[in-house]
């Protein structure tokens, strides 16, 4: 079983948190902080496994993580999951690449502003802590079909809202310069293991 899926950036800011077991909000934040603390102090060229922190359940649990540019993808799993399997799931096969396809060259900003979409993609991949689908094409098909449905539902009424948000989003690429210098390096230009 997967106990939690966390995505946070190099500064520990959560970009997505999905817990498959209930914790209250404070504990969730603590878990994110602790996990960030554990993961961020590790070197680049070390293995991707960590024996779990205190909060997220003892020695049966492992943290399996990947670091991409500014983002950490962390899965907390128990012993019934294969370490390499999950690693694959994050990277080569499924999660990141699906995000890449859906957002067309994904970067941190996409995750920041479209956390709901990321959740929807994740929901096609992992359900209730169990891996639902590992075939990327299948996931993309389903996500696209749902997005299409959403668009058709919005129909004519959605047009003005879309226009407004398009205008608002036009500023997006400039935003980092205006607001947050730290986020300039967010693009994931050349992921070695992609494709």
């Amino acid at each position, binding site marked *: 079983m997967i106990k939690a899926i966390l995505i946070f950036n190099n500064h520990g800011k959560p970009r997505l948190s999905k817990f498959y077991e209930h914790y209250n909000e404070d504990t969730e934040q603590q878990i994110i902080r602790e996990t960030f603390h554990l993961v961020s102090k590790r070197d680049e060229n070390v293995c991707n496994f960590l024996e779990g922190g205190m909060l997220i359940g003892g020695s049966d649990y492992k943290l399996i993580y990947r670091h991409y540019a500014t983002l950490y993808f962390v899965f907390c799993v128990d012993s019934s999951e294969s370490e390499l399997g999950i690693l694959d799931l994050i990277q080569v096969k499924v999660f990141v690449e699906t995000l890449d396809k859906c957002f067309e060259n994904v970067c941190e900003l996409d995750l920041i502003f479209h956390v709901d979409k990321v*959740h929807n993609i994740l929901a096609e991949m992992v359900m209730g802590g169990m891996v639902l689908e*590992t075939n990327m094409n299948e996931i993309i098909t389903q996500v696209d079909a749902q997005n299409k449905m959403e668009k058709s539902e919005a129909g004519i009424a959605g047009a003005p809202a879309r226009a407004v948000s398009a205008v608002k989003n036009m500023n997006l690429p400039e935003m980092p310069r205006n607001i947050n210098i730290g986020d300039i390096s967010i693009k994931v230009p050349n992921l070695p293991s992609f494709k």
Partner: protein
Amino acid sequence: MALKIVKGSIDRMFDKNLQDLVRGIRNHKEDEAKYISTCIDEIKQELKQDNIAVKANAVCKLTYLQMLGYDVSWAAFNIVEVMSSSKFTYKRIGYLAASQCFHESTDVIMLTTNQIRKDLSSPNQYDTGVALTGLSCFVTPDLARDLANDIMTLMSHTKPYIRKKAVLIMYKVFLKYPESLRPAFPRLKEKLEDPDPGVQSAAVNVICELARRNPKNYLSLAPLFFKLMTSSTNNWVLIKIIKLFGALTPLEPRLGKKLIEPLTNLIHRKIHIFSSHKMLCSQSHLIVSLSRIAVLISLSSGMPNHSASIQVMKYLGLLAMSKILKTHPKSVQSHKDLILQCLDDKDESIRLRALDLLYGMVSKKNLMEIVKKLMLHVDKAEGTTYRDELLTKIIDICSQSNYQYITNFEWYISILVELTRLEGTRHGHLIASQMLDVAIRVRAIRVFAVAQMATLLDNAHLLTGNMQRMGICEVLYAAAWICGEFSEHLENPMQTLEAMLRPKVATLPGHIQAVYVQNAAKLFATVLKNQEGNTDSTAAQETSQLMIDRLPLFVQSANLEVQERASCILQLVKYIQKLQQKDVEVAEEVCALFAGELNPVAPKAQKKVPVPEGLDLDAWINEPPSESESEDEQPKAIFAKEEPKHSRPRHTEVDEKELARRREARKQEQANNPFYIKASPSSQKAYQEAPGVEHIPVVQIDLSVPLKVPGLPMSDQYVKLEEERRQKERADKKKKEKKKRKEKRSGRGRKHDSGPESEEDITPAHMVDIVTEEMPEVHRSCLNITMNLKGNARTNMISAKKSSKHKKKKQKKEKEEKEKKKKKKHHHHHHHSDGGGEESVQNGTVEEEEPLPVSVYDIQGNLQDGSQVVVSVIFENKCDSFLKSMEFNVLDSLNSKLQRPEGSGPHDGLTVPFQLPPGVSNEARFVFTVQSIVMPQKLKGTLTFIVKDSSTHEKLDFKLHFTCTSYLITTPCYSDAFAKLLESGDLKCSSVRLEGVIMPFHHLLARICFHHHFSVVERIDSCASMYSRSIQGHHVCLLVKTSGQTVSIDAKCDEPTLLGNVLDEIKQTFSQC
């Protein structure tokens, strides 16, 4: 109309959507909290509007805020509203929000049942999909119960997209509502062969998770999975299947052999299968060697493409090794160097894994070498966490199984002293307790230890240099105590005394100062003795003066303990000085204060104190409690054994009746009182019968369904156990003579106690005299007690120990006698041992109330011969901590006794010959001697163990149920022999009728054969004769007839009691089904 909608949405487009919210938060870096609180106010406004789109937008923003750690449960109802929108867009937002913040105690969840049901049957597959996804996150037992059927229907939906989700969510439903498993299982099995690979994978996933909890039930699926494994190309499915086989092979060894070939193929094809494959390693040698190759490949050469992947492989290799280590330590030990190399790795995960491995690899030969390497690493290591980890590992490695691998304790002491030089460690306490432990238990080492400790005390300023890190100064506690207690070994006691009375000591923590003061007094006594021998009275007087000068410092201490001890000793010294001035020889008397040797006292030592003659512990000391008193207080009243004088013979008969009457009345009262909160049935029963103490609340469970039952609070259990033990002891006394004649024992079972591998051929470099008799029971925690209890307690403890020794000798003699008798009888029954199949006697699962350790017991019995029963117990550590020093103990009954190694008392526990890392299970076997087999019996027992993290003693109570059936052995019998047997007329007859048995006759017979170890002699239509034989040679014959739903069993046996009990058990078997 359309215009209105457009107008509405134009209004809305200036509402803040999720992107605006995120942008806003990023723009308000400085006052984020304030900004968010205004946003939340806005959201509250939006939620009040009727427009569902506005609401959905608000809920969407809330979901984001929830991720940032804001409690949004107040909006739960609005979330439900959005969930029930007819538009997919909003529905999805609603379900996402629900999955993020709903949980079992969210009360609006019950409002969702119908909505979810509607969505599940929606014609739109994505509505259904989104509902399933949401439900998977917040399913509650109620929802599971109500929706199980709907989901089950979805499992055969036409769309594979729905099918796979429905299959997967079934696991969650099973968890919350286990009753649904049985009806859903056939369909689940069907889905294993679904044409869609996604559905197939989901089904495999679910069954793997189920099998992890209870592999036994899924053995029958093995062939199906085998087929899948050879045909499937989906790596994910393959990994899961191999994990599943990993769980199944321990139950069915033949599987292991069958798997070798396909696995080898797989490994050649795909390297990463290997990671799951490690689960199988323990199964067969062939696989082990196979995986070893894989491990080596990954460790030494690694994958050529990327350095991180080498690390991944290394990690997995080490993980695999630790799995192999448990079953085949030898094969891993040969890779010692490789593992030591891994300690140099820059990756902490890998280093910790390697450390874990080392723990299991040490032997007498290589201990010193390994520890030396570790010490090097300690010096090199940067980062206190890793260094602390190293330190604890070193101590763990050395002290494991009672210092089994240490051949030279001087070496160990110096290692400990070296460890004290570590800066900023938190584990001073650990080192201190090791020092004390070794110094007390290993006599021969004391001279050396004392010298080392004296140096430590002398250089105390090095340890206390940085006071912020208090950890290490704990060591001084041990040093002071050792120097004081064994001061006769000190070379220069005067110097040590001075070191202990330095003003700087006052900066140490209170409990350490207290020990300093006390031990200064001991040293003082030794110094006086030496000096008076020299006939130089001035020196002695100077010493007294030194004490009088320095002690006031401690009298002023803020710590009460220090104050008390210091003022006591100060007055004593002043008095001594007075005497000295009158030229009185005082050394002898001062030494007498501290005479005698302190011995470690085991927590269970109290048990060994015999109950004094004429003391009836069960008699009331005071009047029985009044009606208002709660039931559970009674045991405590009985427990007031410290006042034996008050006990006098009473008319217990009357009391008993009176008590029963009152209890009845109270029960009645409670039942009628609506405000009385009734306890759960099991605990209620326990409480009500507490005075009888016949029932420790242990729940018996059928093997196939493990349950968790919370035990009673600890203290109560102790009281009960203690009481029960006493009752038994008294009974024992009465019947001792009878027993002596009948009882038999054999040396079997003793072998199990020996360590994992003996290396007796290595002669220890340094001969040490280990106080063996007390060894297994000495625990660190008791050391403090010993020391604090000095004075009065000292004599008590010694006497306690003496009496126990006495007892042991007696016991030994008895045993020897028994053994002789046993040998004769042994021959007689020898041929049985082959036929004795394994059978389940009982399976209990106990969960402690405390969150920490949970252990599960599968208890299996194994019959060997006429008077012996072998019980295999599987200990599984379900908690997160390492369990060690496990002791298995059973309260012997008159009839059955746990066989203990020679020389141990009748209440001593057997040490379980292994320790349990978290999540690991291991099996131990215990031999019981059984005298009479005609009655079923239950033995109560306890398992004590130490949880490593907290190093506290914990215990679990359990019950072993020896049914009469378990004494029967399936023995084939020919019909002519059977007829002769019946004709002989030696057999007594009995019969039983079973009503309402709805099963085919052959099933019924199979059931009797399986559960009660009979064999069918002859079967004619609906009538069959069956035979079985007990381990003591009783013949049991059955004639089973069935007509309709009635089954009548006529039975004959040469032992009527046995027969009656067996029939009862058969009856029970059928009443359960």
